[in-house]
């Protein structure tokens, strides 16, 4: 049913339809509304049987999910940013143990400096963990992806995180067509564990593995993720046939067939990009957008196919590797490995800085003039940076950079003796 609803609420109600048996989470902006809504449903009895555990930290949240999943229960949690880092050990543990936990990652920047707004640095921090990572373009897709996520996770015994841009999507009120219980029940059968703690058939789960077998265990996990490359589009296709909606899949090309310049991105910025591309197309420019939905496993082949005819590829990404460059870009570069195509990285939206159509148009202008540098930072205030560098050069005790920059902007009041 189509409802005007907050993204978080749409996700919560869809997760509830998936009949999770154990939900455990620790509050962190901007995930709070999701967990609050699920908790309310459990307390009111509308989501049952389900145990809702108010845990004391994110580390506990993922740990509770691990225990529950190993006992054969469908387990769900949600977090962001700092919370994800706090549970990092358990995140790797869950993937290594092959437990089909589903987690909503409400993407948020990682500090310091502390920042509660959206970017993709949190997802990038765990990209090597063995979790499947799916990025939602809209709240509609965010809701739909959770159903596909449980199905995928349980089939392959791989945990799945659904990445949803914090605030931009989670706190936006938009029209979302929510699924019916009967649809979800038909799409998502009860969880049949591959391994389970059962007093009738005792097993030991989580033993130490030494050099003699560790590589093989890791490789098996890699192969399972490569299996996911097949299953993700198949599940998305099944979802499409049942619902009529194009949610999920590996990549989503938009007007790329004859494009000379293709912009690649993930998440909510794709919507803004599509509007931008339409405007440029009206002006006769051959430009398109490629959305990457499955970031892990990384769909190298699908990406290569989509980009191979482009003259220039501009990756707009909300994360970067300090001291190196783009993150998504490097995966794209490896997938492409074609010298004729120019690859450009634009780092944008860090710490929640808005990505405006105006700025995107400037990027496309530079791209079409072949004036886009290999790595740029969208809307970066170079003067402010230069001033801070000058301060640091002038005196050893230059103080915390973050504060200096904020004071420069007038956000923080002047020092008393200034």
């Amino acid at each position, binding site marked *: 049913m189509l409802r005007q609803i907050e993204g978080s609420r749409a996700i919560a109600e869809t997760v509830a339809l998936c009949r999770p*048996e154990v939900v455990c989470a620790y509050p962190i902006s901007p995930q709070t509304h999701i967990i609050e809504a699920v908790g309310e449903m459990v307390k009111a009895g509308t989501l049952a049987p389900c145990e809702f*555990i108010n845990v*004391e930290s994110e580390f506990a949240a993922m*740990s509770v999910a691990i225990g*529950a999943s*190993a006992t054969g229960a469908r387990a769900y949690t949600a977090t962001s940013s700092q919370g994800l880092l706090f549970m990092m*050990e358990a995140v790797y543990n869950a993937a290594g143990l092959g437990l089909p936990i589903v987690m909503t990652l409400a993407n948020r920047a990682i500090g310091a400096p502390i920042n509660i707004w959206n970017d993709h640095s949190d997802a990038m921090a765990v990209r090597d963990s063995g979790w499947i990572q799916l990025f939602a373009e809209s709240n509609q897709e965010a809701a739909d992806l959770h159903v596909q996520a449980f199905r995928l996770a349980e089939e392959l015994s791989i945990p799945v995180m659904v990445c949803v841009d914090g605030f931009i999507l989670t706190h936006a009120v938009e029209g979302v067509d929510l699924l019916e219980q009967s649809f979800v029940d038909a799409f998502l059968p009860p969880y049949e564990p591959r391994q389970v703690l059962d007093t009738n058939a005792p097993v030991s789960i989580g033993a130490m593995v030494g050099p003699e077998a560790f590589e093989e265990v890791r490789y098996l996990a890699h192969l399972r993720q490569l299996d996911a490359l097949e299953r993700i589009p198949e599940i998305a296709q099944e979802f499409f046939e049942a619902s009529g909606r194009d949610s999920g899949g590996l990549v989503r090309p938009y007007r790329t067939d004859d494009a000379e310049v293709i912009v690649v991105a993930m998440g909510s910025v794709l919507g803004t990009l599509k509007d931008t591309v339409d405007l440029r197309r009206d002006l006769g420019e051959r430009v398109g957008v490629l959305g990457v939905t499955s970031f892990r496993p990384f769909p190298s082949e699908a990406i290569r196919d989509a980009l191979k005819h482009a003259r220039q590829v501009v990756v707009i990404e909300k994360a970067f590797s300090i001291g190196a460059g783009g993150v998504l870009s490097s995966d794209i570069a490896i997938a492409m490995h074609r010298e004729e195509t120019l690859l450009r990285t634009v780092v944008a939206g860090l710490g929640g800085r808005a990505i405006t159509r105006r700025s995107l148009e400037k990027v496309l202008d530079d791209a079409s003039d072949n004036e886009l540098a290999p790595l740029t930072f969208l809307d970066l205030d170079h003067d402010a940076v230069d001033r801070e560098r000058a301060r640091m050069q002038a005196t050893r005790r230059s103080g915390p950079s973050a504060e200096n920059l904020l004071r420069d902007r007038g956000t923080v009041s002047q020092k008393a003796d200034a």
Partner: protein
Amino acid sequence: MTSQDVHFYQVGSFAVGNRLLEQEERTVQAQVDRTNSIDSGHRACQGCGEALGARYALDAAMRATNGQIVAVNATGCLEVFSTPYPETSWRIPWLHSLFGNAPAVATGVAAALRAKGIEDVRVVAQAGDGGTVDIGFGCLSGMFERNDDVLFICYDNEGYMNTGVQRSAATPPAARTATTKAVGAEPGNTFGQGKDLPRIAMAHNIPYVATATVADLHDLERKVERAMEFHGARYLHVLVPCPLGWGSASNETIHIARLAKESGLFPVFEAEDGVVRSVSPIRRRVPVEEYLKLQRRFAHLFGPHPRLDVIARIQSMADANIERYGLVSPESLEESS
């Protein structure tokens, strides 16, 4: 159950006595059909107190629950020596996740069982002192606070033994460890630190808290079975000497555990809802030296330049415990004189 003292004067201990008891009063370990939850073939050191404690505790839990328990184990000696790839010595369902999250993982297992309406399977979480009082502390407190239906057992050998005998918040003052070496003006672990986990557990007002040692099998088994009568968060703190880490003889593990109790350094008691309900009195009190001198981790307190001042401080800790818990009863005072 009323406990009956069987004094076996020839041996000087209470270790032998099952043959003089009725069948139903014998220990689980005396039963041929005991589970052997942790079976032989594990790789523990000779004389390992933790291997003993785990077997005692889990077999008792299995009997108390008719064989229906799931064990969650933290990283540590027990986990490592019980599951050397590709073998496992566990005969029960067993899950190891991480070092600091055993209480939370156990919460998850209990929640799953409840969600599935499985009422007869109970959850036992176990960890060493490191995984309980240090890195596991946050999760433990959370589990206690929520009153999750988990029996948490801490096997306390007073240090991080698996990684090479480093100090934990359970390491007693003056003890030598790799990170509190016996050098300088204040050799060994610092005074005035440490956590009293049993009392912290009691402060959470959980249904049942008890301490025990591997020296008194009947007592330990009874406490496990008592714990299983409750639902909610329960905590059992078991002193398990470590010959390697403590520098003691591998055949003296049980003896040393008994001396820990008899000196007053390790009070043995039970508490319910935050209040001490019963105490295991000291039978024949010993001065702390009797206990300390058997362990090379305290060797620097003896020898040609003994640290009588340090020993005196340790003695006063024992005295304080005896006072606080009433460990020396008037009857036993009569007996020992």
